[in-house]
């Protein structure tokens, strides 16, 4: 019986490679992983957006309307909906001049209790240190 903590680190802009989106969808899949684990075993992912990765949380992404695909915003909301911790680096938001009013902060419209956590980079380093494994995207 063990819990394994995983840190998913998204460091690059969305829509250039599939990887930022896949980081989210892979983290979200923790919800169903128990069918492949021994009883009592669990996996706890935390998603961290750093560097250019913070751009992923801009709100009102219309990817479905323009190109017929799910937006990264929607994937972030899905992550909140399944109770994942999603951390966004404050220093990087500040560097880009991205204010709280410009980003996804919650998924209340979908019924999620979790909220996006805007944290200093030091907290993300802590998350990496406390994780059993780290996945850089």
């Amino acid at each position, binding site marked *: 019986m063990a819990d394994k903590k995983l840190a998913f680190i998204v460091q690059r802009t969305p829509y250039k490679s599939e*990887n930022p989106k896949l980081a989210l969808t892979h983290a979200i899949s923790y919800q169903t992983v128990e069918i492949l684990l021994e009883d009592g075993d669990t996996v706890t992912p935390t998603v961290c957006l750093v560097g250019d990765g913070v751009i992923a949380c801009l709100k009102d992404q219309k990817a479905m309307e323009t190109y017929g695909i799910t937006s990264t915003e929607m994937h972030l909301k899905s992550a909140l909906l399944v109770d994942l911790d999603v951390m966004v680096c404050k220093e990087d938001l500040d560097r880009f001049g991205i204010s709280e009013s410009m980003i996804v902060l919650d998924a209340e419209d979908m019924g999620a209790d979790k909220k996006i956590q805007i944290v200093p980079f030091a907290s993300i380093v802590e998350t990496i240190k406390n994780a059993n494994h780290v*996945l850089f995207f």
Partner: protein
Amino acid sequence: MAVLSMGIFSSLIGSMSTDFAIKLASSAIEKGHKVNLWLSGNAVGLVKKSQKHLKDYSTGEKHLIDLMQKGVEICTCEACTYARGIQKADAIEGVQWNAMHWYLAKIHSSDRVLQIGGE
């Protein structure tokens, strides 16, 4: 013996990441370790069978078969693979098909994880 799980997310041809992962997996096996390979994103193209090995292009099929014969478990992301038009009947035999949680489950029992991300 220890367990290494690798996630590959890059195309078979282009970045050399799959060539790297295949060689690293092979070296780990030679040293008596257990290896799991998870293919997602553009890496799922790797499971298409009947790859013609032309010398200008990286090739994956014979290497995947070789690794599986040596006990490496290889799994492709179902949704990613179907989205690219590759069906189970098109795929190299022995490759597993599963959802993304397969990778997380393998990680749970791994000593080391190498997520090959990048661009």
